[in-house]
């Protein structure tokens, strides 16, 4: 065990996996709790909410180079509060963690950064918008126009994002329920980014363009105690419709939720049980069996598709490990998207 593992403790005050992935099932004592009918206020809510235990700025993008080759990138900044407060200096209880990855058809590169708040090394400001950790940043005058960079030892990227649509609020106007017990988070997205820029790979730089999807979510106890992980899909169909769907796996059964997003930005929340997410095939990745081919069906909308990982190698070997990578869609609809699987 190392200092890195020590930090894992910092992020997981309750260490047992049975308590949910990354401690997300821990108790929320002393922290604020998401309530229904919250009125979002922007740009304020693009910034951090230190009295909530956990929060993230999560961007994924499906990209192609000039030859039509598929790529995926991930840029995530997590905030985890040891205490529901913020102070200046080293004793700030806010811990920040950055994850970045580039996935090519046959390789996956990732990097991780860790910092605490209070010393200027990492943080988020709402106006002008900037989320940063070390030299990585996601910034722009507002959330509609962003510049995104990250670097690892052998890869990096520099991308420009332009929003083509409005923000999407999941669940009940941004109040997203995560279990039958009522655990919930605030959750909104910007799924309409046009992305353009450069990927730096060990052997070459590649000009790419494509579509990006930003998730914003904060909570203090998003998982129920029996829930140990989730499978999360963000799918963009060639016809312009988009689907966000997740399945939270628990001892007492799975909990699913989804949002159907039309090209004009109209979003329809879909309750537990509307969407069926079924693993079709698992692949042995880093000594774990990870589902890399799925059947996603949403009978209400006539969706019955197979979702396959572009490469099974998209394992994030970070402090808490998970699978996150680009997928391709075939069946009733064609398209591309991103898949995240935790707790395997």
């Amino acid at each position, binding site marked *: 065990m190392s*200092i890195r593992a020590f*930090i894992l403790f910092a992020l997981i005050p309750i260490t047992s996996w049975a308590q949910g992935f990354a401690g997300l099932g821990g108790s929320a004592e002393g922290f604020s709790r998401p309530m229904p009918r919250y009125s979002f206020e922007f740009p304020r809510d693009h910034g951090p909410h230190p009295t909530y235990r956990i929060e993230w700025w999560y961007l994924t993008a499906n990209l192609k180079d000039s030859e039509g080759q598929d790529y995926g990138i991930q840029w995530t900044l997590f905030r985890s509060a040891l205490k529901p407060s913020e102070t200046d200096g080293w004793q700030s209880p806010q811990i920040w963690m950055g994850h970045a990855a580039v996935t090519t058809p046959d390789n996956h590169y990732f990097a991780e950064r860790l*910092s605490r708040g209070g010393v*200027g090394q990492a943080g988020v400001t709402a106006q002008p918008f900037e989320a*940063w950790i*070390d*030299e990585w940043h996601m910034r722009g005058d507002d959330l509609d126009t962003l510049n995104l960079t990250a670097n690892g030892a052998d890869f990096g990227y520099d991308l420009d994002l332009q929003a083509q649509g409005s923000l999407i609020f999941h669940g009940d106007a941004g109040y997203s329920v995560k279990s039958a017990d009522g655990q919930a988070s605030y959750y909104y997205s910007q799924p309409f980014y046009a992305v353009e820029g450069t990927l730096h790979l060990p052997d070459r730089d590649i000009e790419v363009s494509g579509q990006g999807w930003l998730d914003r979510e904060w909570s203090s106890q998003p998982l129920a105690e029996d829930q140990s992980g989730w499978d999360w899909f963000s799918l963009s169909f060639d016809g312009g419709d988009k689907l966000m769907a997740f399945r939270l796996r628990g001892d007492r059964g799975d909990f699913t939720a989804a949002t159907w997003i039309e090209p004009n930005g109209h979003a329809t929340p879909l309750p537990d049980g509307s969407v069926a997410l079924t693993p079709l095939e698992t692949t042995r990745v880093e000594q774990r069996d990870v589902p890399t081919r799925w059947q996603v069906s949403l009978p209400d909308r006539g969706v019955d598709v197979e979702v396959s990982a572009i490469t099974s190698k998209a394992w994030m070997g970070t402090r808490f490990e998970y699978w996150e990578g680009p997928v391709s869609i075939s069946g009733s609809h064609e398209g591309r998207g991103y898949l995240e699987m935790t707790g395997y």
Partner: protein
Amino acid sequence: MIPPAIQALLSHWRTHPLQLVTLLTGIALATCLWSAVQAINAEARASYKRANAQLAIGQFDELRATGSMIPLSRYAELRRAGWQVAAVLDGSLRVDGRSVRLMGVDMVAYPALPAITQIEQGADAPNPADILTAPGRLLMSPELAPHFQSDDEFPPILTSMALPPDLVLTDIGVAEHLLNRFGQISRLVVLPDQPRDLPPLSDIAPDLQRISPSAQLDTAQLTDSFHLNLSAFGLLSFAVGLFIVHGTVGLAFAQRRGTIRTLRALGLPMRHLIGIVLVELLLLALIGGLFGLGLGYFLAGALLPDVAATLRGLYAAPIDGQMSLRPEWVAAGLSMAIGGTLGASGHALWRLSNMPILTGPGLQAWGGGKTPARITGALGFGLLVAGILAFYAFQGLIGGFALLAGLLTGAALLLPIVLSGVLAFLQKRSNTPVGQWVLADMRAQLPGLSLALMALLLALAANIGVGTMVSSFRLTFTGWLDQRLTSELYLTAADDQQAEFITAWLTPQTSAILPIRSTELTHETGPLFLYGVIDHESYRRNWPLIDEGPDAWDHVLNRGAVLINEQLARRADLWPGDTVAITPRHTLPIAGVYSDYGNPTGQAIVSMSVLDEIAPGTQTRRFGIRITPDRASDLAQALRDRFDLAPSAVVQQTAMKAQSLAIFEKTFVITSALNVLTLGVAGFAILTSLLTLWTQRLPQVAPVWALGLTRAKLARLELLRSVLLAAMTAFLALPLGLILAWVLLAVINVQAFGWRLPMNLFPADWLGLFVLTQIAAFLAAALPAWRLLRLPPAALLRVFANEH
């Protein structure tokens, strides 16, 4: 033939058990002291290595500022430029009257630390929130914990075996609070995994220097000379122990000549004989060596805590007082025992192999008897000269030790011829027959006693030499402390603003406030601490300059000159009139050199304005406060209360002095202990020599007794003889000891510690040592004298019956 031969040879030890005990003791003593020193050295070195590994020190490059501290904002800038660095804030805490190193690391970014691992794997792993947020936790070794538990001002404690003693590890957020250094960083550790496309350091932080692990201050290097010193002492004890071995083996061979002659006459080939004797010696060496190792292990265990205290005090070297048994140490110790025994017996073996088959059992023919005193004397003189030549040829520590070795062995070998000469001179002057007989008898006894006397000479010389060094040091050091620590209170403020408030508050209450501004620089000889001072008579009057140009202080305070400490002066060979490059852009003339005992690093003093020019923005955090001594205590408390200062932020001069002296006393405990032990070994050597000589005394004493001297008178003369020889040796040891002291003070110490001490003479100590020697000689002769007193006249008469 071989088994009976072995039996015959071994029967000697059965009839002479005391000789066997003496021989084994000699081997054991030689091995014991040598191994003890080796064990201590190995333990200390292992400690340094362990501590470095425990704290991940010396594995990574570091960034340091030319000004003493790195601001927190600079850390954030580096991070935001992509540089993966971890912040460390070092300092010291004073608790229970001892100084403890505090290392505050950014627990989120610092590389793996075994201490953390151990704590988090423990039964009650702490919540990371407790470690990272106020009040935080202090991590320390279990032995240090009791000192902190009684004080409510410190955060709760977590103990870990994986931490060096005298070091407290904590998060940097806790450290800046305890040290009153908010937003400051001592050094940045450059982490191994850096991202691609990193901008060069010179673009983003030109004020920071990147220092590779090899250029960082290395404890092992610093303490090398200290360990060499200890080794030399161990070697000296080894040599003294071997004197005993040499003497006893020689005696045993001489006494076994009859047996050997008979065995050879019966047809035992010389090869077999030598083989048997060699195996016998090997066995004895092994037994004695094992005994010695056992003793050495315990001795090292007993001495180690003091050595540890010394090393911590002098070099802040992390070392714990725990011994562990190392196989390579056992192997080395036994090899030394065997090698030493065979070496010490070589002469006897060689003579055995060359002995004509029918040579009679000569009684006087052992020991140095066959080598004329003139040859040993010449050899001794040669060694003396060689030592001096080596000193000039090699210089430095090696030269110093070569000179010591040459001096000591040369003088020892010269001893018999000098004593013989003195006795001959006295004999000519003596006008009573008894007096002449006693002196002649002593001369005749010299070859048999000379080895023991040589051992005594060495032990006495070492005692005088080391004693003079330690006492000189103590005298100089106490005086130096008085000069150096002139202010009644020393205060460390948290920041400039607090410093201003405190100064304003203090000014009406004190006679003077002396600001001390300092910054850490890097000189080619290692780290260099630069201090800025103001013009005050406290400096002009008291500062301990050992070498100065004209108007040294005027030059420093008004004309941009610099004072440097002795360590820097000697390392870089810079003296008043030379110039020193404080930084690549600042070369200053040297106005004087001051003594700076107990500090391993280089130091320099300039005026405040010069310091500001060299390191702009350096803040004044330390102050010396002059007030009447009886008010110091109250003012210290008032300062702490009013400005909410940590106890370590206000220190009284008296406490500082007491602590420095305590460190000093510890420094030489090990030396004194080894000293006393060597003297003990020498006393033992005299006793064994006299006891073995006793067996040959009767033929010499009997005729004198027959001429009318009573046994009581003879016994008194026996005592007198021993005391007189010891006295003569002691007289000769005095100049040798003083030369030794000079070499230690002027050569070895300069190399080992970087300072040279004035030599003081302590006749009272010599007198004490002289009396001790006389008592030892008296006691050593008491047993033979008592035997003589109780000898039945028939035994004396039998001497004549054996004569033809």
